[in-house]
């Protein structure tokens, strides 16, 4: 880990998490007695932590200040040890193992292999609990192996509830209060909710707004917009991955060129390598041109310093949006993706059918998509809702049409005509665009591609 990386891991304070572990323990000023009999209060730990050697010397019982002591002044405010000596002399234990100072025990706990061990350590005595609940302890020392170095309680391994709109839409005040992480494995959901609290003025920039995009494995992917300058064209937006528990976060750019309008983001967490991937995906539907139906993706990988890959286009010809559909399906709004390993599944309910769009992100040499058509019996919700949805789409399209103007209206009529007779090839109204063959047939444009040629520039 280079020093530059350390800098990017800004401590973030947007969500203060209510951890049961640390509710009372933060403000405890425990007064403890060292073996020498000197009194110490637990003062500022941060001073000692800079020098591991100096910190621990205070806790080794026999305190000798050596001439080579790099930080002799830190002796005074070090963490003293709780009453470990008293018991050792009682000989309650079978073996004569030298008692380890609590500092060392905290180091061990911080390197625990699983969160359970840490919690059990914290349950041994007050001082350990205070240490485990200490935020700086979690932020700086905790490296639980089984969570990939992230301290994630099972409680927090769930998903983010509440609205995730996608890029460009930040949370309203009411929605901010509805952000929860839930444990999807819990039987009783109600008891397993952990609320994320957004403070009114987050530290760092007071002008940041957050757009939750996705969450997985206890980590949250946000788009962060810095509103400090009010020029629209200078608006700066970044992506940020946050760990609510350790409060580590990593901010990285959205990439150049900027994401396509209406893109959805999926957050993928690697196994135990502390790595993550961000998938930017946009699904384009086209009622007539099967070749125009595609999924356009771009992947950010945190490995090798973090890079955005190139944008790739994966054809999805069998995903039929239906005639009344928009030309794109906003995946994030439509359904929350199901991620298994490095395979992302979206449920796409369109006019013409129900589909599962499966994207294998880790496939070699390039990501692979597969569309599975679900049987007609697949439950899709009430038909009334579908009708409302299609009415909404039609209304939206009419609004767009008005804006585009009269020339567009002509084409709109063509389209409306086609809607009535969807199976018929479109009548070539603008014959001037088509060449007549000497033999009498129409050449140049196949019927299937007609809509593409004629209407593409209006609908893109």
């Amino acid at each position, binding site marked *: 880990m280079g020093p530059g990386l350390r800098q990017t891991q800004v401590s973030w304070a947007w969500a203060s998490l209510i951890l*049961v572990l640390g509710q009372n323990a933060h403000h405890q000023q425990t007064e403890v007695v060292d073996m020498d009999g000197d009194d110490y209060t637990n003062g500022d730990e941060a001073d000692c932590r800079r020098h591991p050697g100096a910190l621990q010397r205070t806790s080794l019982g*026999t305190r000798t200040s050596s*001439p080579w002591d790099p930080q002799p002044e830190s002796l005074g405010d070090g963490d003293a040890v709780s009453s470990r000596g008293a018991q050792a002399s009682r000989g309650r234990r079978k073996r004569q193992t030298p008692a380890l*100072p609590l500092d*060392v025990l905290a180091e*061990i706990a911080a390197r625990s292999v699983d969160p359970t061990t840490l919690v*059990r350590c914290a349950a041994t005595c007050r001082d350990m*609990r205070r240490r485990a609940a200490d935020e700086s302890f979690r932020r700086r020392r905790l490296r639980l192996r089984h969570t990939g*170095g992230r301290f994630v309680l099972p409680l927090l391994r769930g998903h983010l509830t509440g609205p995730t709109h996608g890029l460009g839409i930040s949370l309203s005040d009411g929605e901010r209060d509805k952000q929860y992480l839930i444990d999807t494995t819990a039987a009783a959901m109600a008891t397993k909710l952990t609320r994320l609290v957004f403070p009114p003025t987050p530290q760092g920039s007071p002008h940041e707004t957050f757009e939750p995009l996705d969450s997985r494995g206890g980590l949250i992917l946000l788009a962060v917009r810095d509103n400090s300058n009010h020029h629209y064209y200078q608006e700066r937006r970044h992506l940020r991955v946050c760990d609510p528990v350790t409060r580590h976060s990593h901010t990285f750019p959205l990439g150049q060129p900027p994401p396509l309008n209406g893109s959805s983001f999926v957050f993928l967490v690697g196994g135990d390598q502390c790595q993550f991937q961000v998938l930017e995906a946009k699904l384009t539907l086209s009622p007539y041109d099967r070749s125009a139906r595609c999924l356009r993706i771009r992947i950010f990988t945190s490995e090798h*310093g973090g890079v955005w890959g190139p944008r790739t286009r994966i054809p999805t010809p069998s995903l039929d949006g239906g005639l009344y559909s928009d030309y794109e399906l906003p995946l994030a709004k439509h359904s929350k993706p199901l991620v298994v390993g490095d395979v992302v599944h979206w449920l796409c309910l369109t006019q013409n059918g129900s589909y599962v769009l499966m994207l294998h992100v880790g496939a070699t040499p390039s990501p692979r998509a597969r569309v599975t058509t679900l049987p007609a019996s697949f439950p899709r919700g009430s038909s009334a809702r579908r009708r409302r949805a299609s009415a909404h789409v039609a209304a939206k399209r009419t609004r767009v049409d008005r804006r585009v103007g009269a020339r567009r209206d002509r084409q709109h009529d063509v389209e409306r005509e086609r809607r009535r007779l969807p199976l018929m090839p479109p009548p070539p109204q603008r014959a001037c665009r088509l060449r007549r063959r000497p033999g009498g047939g129409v050449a140049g444009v196949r019927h299937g591609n007609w809509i593409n040629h004629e209407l593409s520039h209006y609908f893109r």
Partner: protein
Amino acid sequence: MEVDKGKGEAEETRKVAEADRDTVTLKSSDGKLFEVSKEAAARLSTVLAGMIAGGSIDDNGTDLKQIGSEALENVVDYCNKHANSIPSAALISSSISFNTAPFKEPEEWERKFVDRLSHDALFDLVEAANFLGMERLLDVTCHKISEMMKGKSPDQIREVFNIKNDYTKEELEEIRQELAWAFYDD
């Protein structure tokens, strides 16, 4: 005393002559001397590095009163073995992770190194590593101990580490209820 002083002065002159010696001598609490390469000591231990940089290394044996001879022997052993081992690829790869200090799995030889130690020796070694500011050795030894702690109840941990339980009964019950997921096996 006089003899010691004279010897000390002789040491002074020898120190100047051999300023670029490539080993340092460490003295355990019970007076045994150990030699370790200066380069490895400076690289592995922040405290020793500070001492070497600050010129407070005593050629006649730097006193480490807190460390017993067995633990110091293990420390020196570790330093020598570490100097011989080839750094793994994981140590030089650069990538984004969420750790300020990513934990690297102990390598095979490190695993063997701590596995052969007795319980007591391991605890001594942890303390010594902590004292000398040897991050990597602390990682390896703490990892081993935390593996031993896995699945133990708070009572068992208290017993092994000799921690006095200063919780009241009510507080303990409260913790058990709040963090029930951590106490399923009990």
